[in-house]
């Protein structure tokens, strides 16, 4: 089931109605059932993987809780991690490694014939696996207590709003909320609905509309060139932001209605003034996960400068690989890692050459220049992210300089799903991006107060103005093709 479907528009009110109709003691049963139903609507058999992952982690957690000594807990932690990563490897990475090995053997004329594993990648596998691993490691480290109640634990792993694409939650933050009694609260439910509405605006009005132009370029590498590719890459950067943050808004809004406060994933990332700030504002729960479970165990920043640079670069490359088993994602992370390394070197050796230091009296100007610079910098790895394979990335990058400019074709002759002329969709896209920029700017200037809080604090006429305008935009300008969220594939 995807959020932007009629199915979900029936599912959500039904679950919420039942949720507030039953005693809080039994709500976990409802949430667990709803979560598995939500997941099984996609492919019922793969629910088995969640059951398996949940059972292993529950069992290992219980075993670890019996021992105070870390040494005795360690085997259980290793077992849990190995099992989780094995499932992840088998379904997500096996074919990639197999193909790479085959290519390597072929290059030296050695026969290699291990067949590929032809199974669909389970939706949300990377997300719930990471969530499960964080639980095990936290229990091992003693920062979280093992959950004794299997039902609550299973609900924690499979909680439907964040099951398929996060935000990745930590046990100590989220699981206790499942045991609390949340009564129906008008203000809270209203805020949840505002967040959902805004999420739909980002997804079905902006992201799905921009996809028309992004697809046109990235699905036909070699057919476009010049500024058209730069434009499509800018649009992709906004598309992926609206797509993923739109998903998170719907997830957070749905959870909020039920009283659950999930960790947020985005804080106006395109207003970042450095690449490090960008990663503090983009896919926050994954960044924090990687920081806590990979970067810090590697030594973090409490090591020599070169080692710290390596840790940064390695962590981001792994994070890129987490997205998918493809060289494009590895390169996505690698390039981001390279930028982080360069920014750290620059800050260390050329601190006086930073723009704000050079122009201390032109804060507005330097902020805008830096934001635009960082936005463009993050667009470079996005070329890898958006391409289907590394060869196509090469063609696309080359076409920027060698192919005649096709911007006019892109704007006027792309193929919208309906019969609307491409130029109208393009103008609408620009208009909606302006709305997004305005809203994000407002959030940015209010230190990233969530939109639902910000709107709720407004006077009545402005509040209702927001409801009516956003609801109208969602109703009238939704792209109704029910396209899946980009991050569902991870």
């Amino acid at each position, binding site marked *: 089931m995807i959020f932007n479907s009629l199915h979900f528009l029936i599912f959500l009110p039904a679950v919420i109605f039942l949720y507030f109709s039953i005693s809080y003691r039994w709500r976990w049963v409802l949430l667990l059932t709803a979560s598995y139903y939500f997941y099984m609507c996609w492919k019922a058999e793969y629910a088995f993987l969640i059951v398996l992952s949940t059972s292993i982690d529950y069992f290992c957690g219980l075993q670890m809780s019996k021992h105070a000594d870390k040494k005795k807990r360690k085997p259980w932690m290793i077992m849990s991690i190995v099992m989780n990563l094995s499932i992840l490897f088998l379904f997500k990475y096996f074919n990639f490694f197999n193909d790479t090995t085959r290519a390597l053997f072929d290059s030296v004329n050695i026969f290699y014939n291990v067949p590929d594993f032809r199974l669909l990648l389970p939706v949300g596998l990377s997300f719930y696996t990471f969530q499960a691993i964080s639980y095990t490691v936290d229990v091992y480290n003693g920062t979280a207590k093992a959950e004794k109640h299997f039902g609550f634990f299973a609900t924690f792993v499979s909680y439907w709003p964040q099951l398929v694409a996060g935000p990745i939650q930590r046990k100590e933050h989220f699981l206790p909320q499942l045991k609390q009694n949340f009564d129906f609260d008008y203000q809270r439910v209203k805020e949840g609905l505002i967040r959902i509405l805004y999420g739909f605006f980002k997804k079905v009005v902006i992201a799905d509309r921009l996809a028309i132009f992004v697809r046109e370029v990235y699905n036909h590498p070699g057919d476009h060139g010049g500024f058209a590719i730069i434009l499509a890459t800018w649009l992709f950067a906004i598309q992926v932001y609206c797509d993923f943050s739109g998903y998170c808004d719907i997830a957070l809004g749905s959870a909020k209605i039920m009283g659950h406060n999930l960790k947020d994933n985005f804080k106006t990332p395109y207003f970042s003034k450095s690449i490090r700030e960008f990663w503090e504002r983009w896919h926050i729960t994954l960044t924090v996960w990687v920081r806590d479970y990979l970067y810090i165990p590697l030594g973090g920043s409490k090591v020599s400068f070169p080692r710290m640079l390596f840790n940064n670069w390695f962590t981001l490359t792994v994070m890129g690989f987490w997205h998918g088993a493809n060289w494009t994602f590895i390169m996505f992370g690698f390039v981001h890692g390279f930028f982080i390394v360069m920014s750290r070197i620059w800050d260390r050796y050329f601190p006086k050459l930073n723009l704000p230091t050079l122009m201390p009296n032109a804060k507005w100007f330097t902020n805008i220049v830096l934001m635009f610079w960082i936005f463009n910098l993050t667009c470079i790895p996005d070329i890898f992210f958006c391409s289907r394979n590394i060869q196509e990335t090469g063609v696309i990058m080359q076409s920027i300089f060698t192919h005649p400019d096709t911007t006019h074709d892109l704007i006027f002759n792309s193929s919208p799903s309906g019969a*609307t002329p491409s130029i*109208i969709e393009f103008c609408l896209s620009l208009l909606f991006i302006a709305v997004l920029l305005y809203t994000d700017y407002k959030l940015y200037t209010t230190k990233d107060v969530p939109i639902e809080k910000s709107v709720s604090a407004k006077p009545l006429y402005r509040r209702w103005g927001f409801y009516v305008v956003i609801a109208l935009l969602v*109703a*009238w300008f939704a792209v109704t093709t029910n396209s899946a969220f980009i991050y569902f594939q991870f």
Partner: protein
Amino acid sequence: MKKLFLRFGLLVLIILVISQIALMTMPFSWGNIRLNTKYETYIDNHEQYNTLFIGASTTYRHINCHQFDSLVNAQRPDMQIRSFNFGIPANRTPQSVYMLGNLVDYDKSNLKYVVIDLSELTKMGADNLHKKEMIYWYNYDNILGVMKASYESEKSIGKKFSVPALHAFSFAEKSFMIGMGPALVQQHAGMNLEMRSLGPNGDGFYSLDQEMIDDPDGDLAQRYNELRTQDTIDYRTQRCQFLYDKYNNSKNNPNKTIQKNLEDIIAFCDENDIKVVIMLSQRLGDRYEYLIPLYNKLPEENKIGFQNPSEYPMFNQRENLFDLAHLNAPGSTLFTEIFAEKFLERIDMQNGVSPLVKDTIDTDTTRSTPEDKSL
């Protein structure tokens, strides 16, 4: 919770009202670019036209207005026929009723003759949801009739409920203009026009051959090449004949709602002093089960039928076909010629003149025009 429902309801009501106001700013034809082009052209020159053809692609591609006018006027100069072709692909009978109502509402003073192409109900499946071409014509007057007709028309219990439900859902989508914002902008930006679809004479007739010449990169060339093998044409003809023979009897009952629709059209035209003829084109045989009983219930003077392949073999000959469902330019010339003749007969019948004593139009003695068995 009551407070939430009330406020949510208020928001929905506001959106509905604004959407309805926006819809009022659009012409009735907004959802179909070809229809909209034809309508805009028609309202600019409506004083000139006294005859309208309303229907699907079988009207759009087969009735050459220019030729029709010449043929009829040569025979009956007093009629001063000047026709306009409002045929659009995939148009259905309830849509024709909607179009006719709107065209008459716009200006009925010149209108004397209307020809409506009989076609099946909209094939409403989930894949047709959200498409403006499918839903622009729903309104409070016709939606219940469409749902009722679908209920009567569908065979399986599941579809008896699911198809009307899809129509109802689409009606709600139209009411709230779900996803229709770009169409609104397109309409008001003056970009909801495709002048080519008016055809070379600007009267709404556009043969498929001509369109293939005008748009060589379109999918028509593929259709033309793939579907015109003799074996396929023979199979098509046999199937069509089989289905015609099977359903052309009194055992099959027509869809009561659509039958009532057609009777209402005839009565409506009578009231407005418009002569109406309902035409049934030759089909692939699909939905003959539904169309032939309807056709058979119509009064003789109000109908012209081409549904029987053995009666009109020329429309199954390779040299007259563009694809399996449509005639090419020579085929449409032949069709228009025969149609004009039949049209005059029906108008005479409506005027109380016996068709047996009138002169017939026969400009081409070599064609194999059959005897009209109804006479």
